[in-house]
């Protein structure tokens, strides 16, 4: 099973990932003669407390995305009443540990738009929807985490 191991940073289990236009949308952009924005390299925190993956709006805008869904969200900033948040279809690629390891990719996945960047040093929360495709090992004693896919 391909896997990679990274150090747990003071910010937690953080890793680099690419976010891009979904595969479904890429075909439409090409057929319309429009250019496909290149995937963006961002920093994501593995967060088992997030049921869905969240991405900062700055990156959503950079990719020129428009929403294809809305979902109710409960987070400490919203209090006890859920708020509707926009959902966007994207592709996500997580590079393997070496060139010999295959890339972990999801071609058409929905992410939530949430303000994260200011003061947090991360661009995305990698939620349980993505972790549902992986095996996560959090080795706090060694200060390492491993993702196998």
């Amino acid at each position, binding site marked *: 099973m391909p896997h990679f191991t990274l150090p747990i940073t003071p910010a937690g289990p953080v890793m680099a990932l690419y976010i891009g236009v*979904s595969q*479904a*949308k890429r*075909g*439409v*952009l090409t*057929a*319309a003669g429009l250019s496909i924005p290149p995937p963006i390299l961002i920093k994501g*925190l593995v*967060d088992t*407390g*997030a*049921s*869905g993956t*969240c991405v900062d*709006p700055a990156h959503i805008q950079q990719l020129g995305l*428009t*929403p*294809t*869904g*809305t*979902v*109710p*969200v*409960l*987070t*400490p*900033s*919203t209090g006890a009443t*859920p*708020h*509707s*948040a*926009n959902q966007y*279809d994207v592709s996500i690629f997580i590079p393997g540990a070496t060139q010999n390891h295959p890339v972990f990719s999801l*071609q*058409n996945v*929905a992410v*939530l*738009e*949430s*303000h*994260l960047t200011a003061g947090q040093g991360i661009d995305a*929360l990698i*939620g349980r929807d993505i972790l549902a495709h992986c095996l996560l090992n959090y080795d706090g004693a060694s200060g390492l985490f491993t993702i196998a896919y």
Partner: protein
Amino acid sequence: MALEKELETYKKKLPELAGSEGKFALVHGDEVVELFNTYEDALKEGYAKFKLDPFLVKQITVLEQIQYITRFVAPSIVPAT
């Protein structure tokens, strides 16, 4: 607001969609176009049919599934209709 009409259509048609709980509805304007077993299939059909026009993909749930985020984030909130 993005997808305002599509959300209104979904809410209006929800009583008749309730028997298809768990499926993904593709909604465009005032029409529920088709139901799919997966998000991916609904998305692909949405782009195939409507290109870059707005469309909504919504999982059918009688009691809407809430997303929980325990970290302090500020969701880009869609104004209530």
